[in-house]
């Protein structure tokens, strides 16, 4: 898979705009095509990641840009939808079945409660169909089973919001203090409002091709997609919307996705300079530290408190501000991370640049039990 490259990226800022998903997606797609010096008609295939829009959503977005008549397919895996487009694209390119592919993630999430997360009717009726409940239970387990404290959870939010001050594409760009985080409304204890991300609107896109095609086209700043893995539910995982799990043998989707990604890329966690991970809530970022191999289980608080995962540290996590600051346009999340990672290894992130970044990983998780890790390098 090291033969697949990202030839161009584009993004529509994340936030609340009310312009409709067609417009959001068209902006990101056009920017990615321009970045790769490609016309819409140069593409073989368009893969569109989206969760909440109507049928043929990808087709409706592309129609804003032109009518190339090529296959447009919509891919959905909840918050890991973007990863699905990257997986399919990379495999088609590696096999030679396609030459140039546009991967586009776009979302105009309804405000407030994330509905349709796959809960059965009885779960919803009995009050169990609530996504933050899952994050809160996992957060409490982390507090109980490690030396992570509520202050550490607040610090994740403080860190990521500080990063977003320098990200014009993030929804929330103001720094916050630990006191403000701990003073925000308790949503599902122990999680406060400022420890949880908000679903919103946005889009991000990437043009993928093989390295030889990028050379032929004279694309100077292509970034290698060293690996992208997607895993779904194994026998012993637990995530939204499952109501039960095996007590003694709970496994991690993220750990499996990461292990496979490192294996495919031929690298390890020590080779990573920058991380964009799924901080749907503050505790999820700390779990990602262990599951992505950034620390051993039990050392999450130590890693955070050392400053290693803040800008300027050894392995900055969520220099974009993460979901906590960007918000979460569900289908666009993973491609938004790819946009950040590509720009980081290209050295184009300005005041949030990770010095000397050459290799980064992106991590998303989705309801229904989906997880993905992508590795990019220059």
């Amino acid at each position, binding site marked *: 898979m090291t033969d697949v490259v990202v030839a161009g990226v584009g993004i529509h800022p994340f936030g609340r705009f009310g312009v409709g998903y067609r417009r959001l997606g068209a902006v990101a797609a056009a920017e990615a095509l321009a970045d790769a010096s490609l016309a819409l008609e140069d593409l073989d295939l368009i893969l569109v990641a989206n969760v909440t829009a109507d049928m043929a959503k990808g087709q409706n977005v592309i129609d804003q840009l032109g009518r190339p008549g090529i296959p447009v397919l919509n891919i959905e895996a909840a918050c890991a939808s973007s990863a699905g487009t990257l997986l399919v694209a990379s495999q088609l390119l590696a096999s030679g079945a396609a030459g140039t592919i546009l991967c586009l993630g776009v979302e105009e999430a309804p405000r407030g*409660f994330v*509905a349709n997360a796959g809960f*059965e*009717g*009885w779960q*919803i*009726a*009995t*009050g*169990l*169909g*609530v996504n933050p*409940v899952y994050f*809160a*239970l*996992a957060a*409490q*387990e982390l507090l*109980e089973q490690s030396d992570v404290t509520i202050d550490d959870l607040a610090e994740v939010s403080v860190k990521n919001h500080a990063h977003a001050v320098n990200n014009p594409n993030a929804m929330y760009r103001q720094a916050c203090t630990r006191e403000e985080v701990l003073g925000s409304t*308790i*949503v*599902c*204890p*122990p*999680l406060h409002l400022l420890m949880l991300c908000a679903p919103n609107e946005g889009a991000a896109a990437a043009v993928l091709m093989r390295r030889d095609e990028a050379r032929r086209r004279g694309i100077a700043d292509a970034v290698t997609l060293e690996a992208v893995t997607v895993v779904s539910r194994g*026998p*012993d995982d637990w995530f939204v919307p499952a*109501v*039960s*799990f*095996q*007590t*003694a043998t709970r496994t991690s989707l993220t750990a499996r996705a990461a292990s496979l990604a490192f294996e495919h890329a031929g690298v390890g966690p020590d080779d990573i300079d920058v991380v964009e991970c799924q901080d749907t809530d503050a505790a999820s970022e700390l779990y990602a530290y262990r599951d992505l191999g950034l620390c051993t289980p039990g050392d999450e608080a130590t890693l955070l408190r050392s400053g290693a995962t803040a800008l300027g540290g050894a392995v900055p996590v969520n220099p974009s501000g993460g979901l906590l600051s960007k918000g979460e346009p569900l289908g666009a999340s993973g491609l938004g991370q790819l946009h950040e990672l590509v720009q980081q290894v290209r050295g184009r992130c300005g005041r949030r640049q990770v010095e000397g970044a050459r290799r980064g990983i992106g991590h998303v998780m989705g309801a229904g039990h989906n997880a993905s890790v992508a590795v990019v390098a220059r």
Partner: protein
Amino acid sequence: MTGRLPRPLFEPESAASGSIVALSVSKCATCGRHEFPHRDRCPSCRSGSAPALLSTRARVTAFTSVSHPPPGALVEVPYAVAIAAFPEGVSVLGRVVGVRLDELAIGDAVDTVAAVVGDAIGYAYRLAVETDR
């Protein structure tokens, strides 16, 4: 969304609210794994599974609460939600009734009970009164 629950999740199905019930699970004929809700095949070894009932008593391993009414919920806020670990090796999420959040603690024993959900009956947990340890 009506209050009707599509299949029995517990027995006895016609239990009165507040009475103790047992969750309906499946037990794998080969590896003994219990699954809730019940399924025909074991997700672990794929052998056939047979219906079984869980013990009615479990232990709280984590808990939280919900204060804002979620769309479609037929229960009143605020309510507590717990993960309860059963002796059969499976942990199941459930609402905890008849308790304030500050009365719950990890390690508490709970009984599975029938509880009103809209115009139907569902399952929930209730703090058990333990007379011996």
